[in-house]
């Protein structure tokens, strides 16, 4: 069993993802802002982070949090759940994963297909395993 932290401002979406993760046997915590996420990470470090991109306070807060997490906590696996279209040129895609600019482990595009989400989480945790 692994512990996951979901950071998403939409409580309905976050709780749905949490249900799936719990169904996979993981322990899940939800926070709805990047500030809460940093506070939570100070207290307890999860095995992986499921992170949204756009937050009401800042449309790119997810990116900033990812950079901050990477700076503070090293290689904590981050799965970015984003409503920003990856396949067309809105600014970023899997190809843009970069240690400095976009330090995430993988992307899943919203609306999320749960089969894909389960697969990505499994891969994410496997990649983090020592």
């Amino acid at each position, binding site marked *: 069993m692994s512990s996951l932290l979901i950071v998403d401002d939409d409580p*309905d979406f976050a709780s749905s993802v949490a249900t799936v993760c719990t169904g996979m046997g993981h322990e899940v915590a939800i926070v709805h802002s990047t500030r809460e996420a940093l506070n939570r990470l100070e207290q307890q470090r999860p095995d992986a982070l499921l992170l949204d991109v756009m937050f009401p306070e800042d449309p790119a807060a997810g990116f900033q949090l990812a950079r901050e997490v990477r700076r503070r906590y090293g290689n904590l696996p981050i799965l970015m759940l984003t409503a920003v279209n990856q*396949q067309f040129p*809105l600014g970023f895609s899997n190809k843009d994963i970069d240690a400095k600019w976009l330090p995430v482990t993988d992307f899943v595009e919203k609306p999320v297909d749960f089969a894909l989400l389960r697969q990505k989480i499994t891969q994410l945790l496997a990649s983090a395993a020592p």
Partner: protein
Amino acid sequence: MAGSRVTSGVALASMLLIWVVIWYLVSRLASTVRARDRALFVANARLQASIEERSKHMLQTTHQLKAPFAAIHAQVQLLLEGYCGVLPAAAMGVVEKISRRCRVLSRQVQEMLQLANLRSHGQTAPPARELALDHLVADVIHRVEPAAQQRGIGFDRQLEPVRLQGIEDHLTMLVDNLVVNAVTYSHDRGVVAVACRRESPGGRCWSCRTGALAFRRRSCRTSSTTTIGRKKRSSTTAVRRGWVWPSCVRSPVRITSGLKWRVRPVGGHVSRLRFPTRRRSLRSARPATLINCLLNYHVLSSDCG
């Protein structure tokens, strides 16, 4: 003598008068044109600013729309996958319908995002590079396949390795649009044939052929062929009425050297794209052409319900 002097004086005066009148009229006209030009310039600048503002607003709104759809989609999946207990068959049917509608709306929101993105001026033009058309088409089919399977529609793939130079995002949108429309207009349990091949060894063009078995609409009563070249734009009733894949009426004109639709009531319809090879790259494809492609596709989608 005096009479002739007077006459020539009068003639001179009238000539001068005419010149003065002409000069006055011309200068008046010129100043009016200049004033109109200035007004037009100002109006144009305001229009441009309002278009940009509208695009920004649309982008923001569509982002805001996408989040609730993502939440609905997630919750529907919870129901369908049994996380909330087993649903009765009737309830399952209703939830599946909600799920389908949700997917369609999410897709439209996504296309609006792409549209807004294409219209934004702040972005540099995406780079053209060498692309594997067969892989690109296969990816599109993979994405569309789940929706096609719900209506029992299968794909007949004949994808030979074809490489071309182009802008990946634009080409993906174009192929995606063609394949989605082929599925939309196919009969239930039909077959959509998608082929991608080099037309002849050493030939000058490649083609991507997408054919669906038939229209669902009763409007297809006669056979017709519509060809759109680089300069010519089709304005046939068939195209304008919307049952001949209007998604690409304008879009491929700058992208391809030719687009051809063949429509038969029984045999279905075939759309064929010919891609330029060496001289004409897809680099010249302007976002505006793709905007039309997406706009028309929206009309199609809502039309088909």
